[in-house]
């Protein structure tokens, strides 16, 4: 375990150097948030109107939180580094190191987002309170649970992204698959809460990773309830276990293919 801690620490240090870049990334976040505030301002016409069970303030906070997770997790970097390692042949060296390659990537990636997430969280909280006011009835005492939920969400996402990156063992470039996965998460879980979709589709969405990656954590932040919290945390743990299983399995298959074909 200690070796992963050392990897984590050095990635954190490396990323601190890019702190200025992260601040620049805020600009994009603001653009998104701004567009959505404008959009929802236009769509909610009457004060106090409720759409799909969300007030305007809740709806805007929802997007702010999902976008915060989205930007802090920066999915391109995790799937991208797996793809580059495999395609560039770097994998041959990393494979034989005394750590598990997928866990190495996961740790490295954790180091990356753990610098970004607090910065985005501060920014999002400040922007949210400044622009739409605090979330009505926000239970401060439950904050640690919410944070746990966000962290689990990002990790589940990372595990799935690594799986997608591992597809590069078989196909030349896994990037197109990442686009589709990203878009799915974005369209279904990030810009709208699941409740806005036709009821017939909702149970289906609950079975996809979308439910645990963005929707779950954001829903808890805008509209907390203990039962919901237990449900989401449970789903996340299950997804994490299943995702890791898939990740180890894919990796093992991929490595075997590499040995057979010699890359």
């Amino acid at each position, binding site marked *: 375990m200690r070796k992963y801690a050392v990897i984590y620490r050095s990635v954190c*240090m490396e990323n601190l*150097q890019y*702190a200025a870049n992260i601040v620049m990334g805020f600009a994009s976040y603001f653009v998104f948030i701004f567009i959505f505030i404008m959009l929802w301002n236009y769509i909610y016409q009457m004060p106090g109107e409720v759409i799909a069970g969300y007030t305007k303030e809740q709806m805007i906070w929802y997007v702010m939180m999902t976008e915060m997770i989205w930007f802090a997790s920066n999915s391109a970097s995790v799937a991208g580094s797996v793809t580059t390692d495999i395609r560039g042949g770097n994998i041959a060296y990393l494979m034989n190191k005394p750590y598990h390659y997928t866990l190495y990537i996961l740790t490295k990636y954790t180091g990356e987002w753990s610098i970004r997430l607090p910065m985005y969280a501060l920014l999002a909280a400040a922007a949210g309170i400044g622009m739409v006011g605090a979330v009505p009835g926000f239970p401060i005492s439950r904050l640690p649970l919410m944070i746990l939920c966000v962290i689990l969400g990002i990790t589940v996402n990372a595990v799935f992204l690594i799986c997608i990156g591992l597809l590069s063992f078989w196909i030349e470039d896994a990037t197109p698959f990442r686009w589709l996965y990203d878009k799915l998460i974005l369209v279904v879980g990030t810009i709208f809460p699941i409740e806005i979709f036709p009821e017939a589709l909702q149970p289906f969405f609950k079975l996809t990773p979308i439910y645990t990656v963005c929707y779950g954590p954001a829903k808890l932040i805008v509209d907390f309830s203990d039962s919901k919290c237990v449900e989401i945390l449970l789903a996340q743990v299950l997804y994490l276990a299943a995702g890791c299983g898939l990740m180890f399995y894919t990796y093992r298959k991929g490595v075997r293919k590499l040995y057979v074909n010699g890359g």
Partner: protein
Amino acid sequence: MQAIKAENLSKSFRVKRKEKGMRGSIRAILHPQTEEIKAVDGVSFTVEEGEILAFIGPNGAGKSTTIKMLTGILYPDGGKVEVLGIDPVKKRKQLAYHIGTVFGQKEQLWTHLTPYDNFQFFSAIYDIPDREARKRILELADCFELGAFINTPVRNLSLGQRIRCEIVASLIHKPRVLFLDEPTIGLDPVVKETIRSLIRQMNEEMHTTIFLTSHDVGDIEKLCKRVVIVNAGKIVLDEPMEHLRNADLAGIPLENIIMEIYKSEEGRAGL
């Protein structure tokens, strides 16, 4: 006529510094520190047309920076440059028609295309009409013995074959001066020898002036009539090859002489 004239040439760079550890990382964000390095410091020399000159020195001595100033990529901070009577700073494009460059460590070729396609591309760059280009390519392919692989994508070629193609690509437009920056880096001895004899042949037949940087003593010994050694941005030795060969005869191998000069701050130690 003088092909290259450099007078009191200088160039400095600013380099960032970072202290170690987490604290150093944070400090580097808050107070970025830089220091100035004189990459080239008052360098003067001339190269006659048709000459083969070795421009050598340890890593970071200012060799590449000098080549970049001679080819118009970098502007000097001070001093004057003239290549074929043209000022590279003012007339970079005009000069480009008359010089060729090969950077051993940087590829100029499109790796997924065949050498032939590449040469056609370079012909277009130098405004050579198609028919003439075809003739020229065949001529060079013959001379450099590229026939066997002229239709194989560059990425499938060996390093030696590649570098031969790089050199041909830089000769398409019959340059009068050729800059070779470590052309034999990473090649095996046999291929090195081929490249050297081709360079020599080119110099003899076309009277091309050659400005060569290398770490390989063999390149210098076998090709050059004159050696300029730079260290820490300054010229520490500028002698005809013969003088060095004479020292060699006195029992000190050329390699040792060069090593001595590299190590000594003032240069000229061994002679």
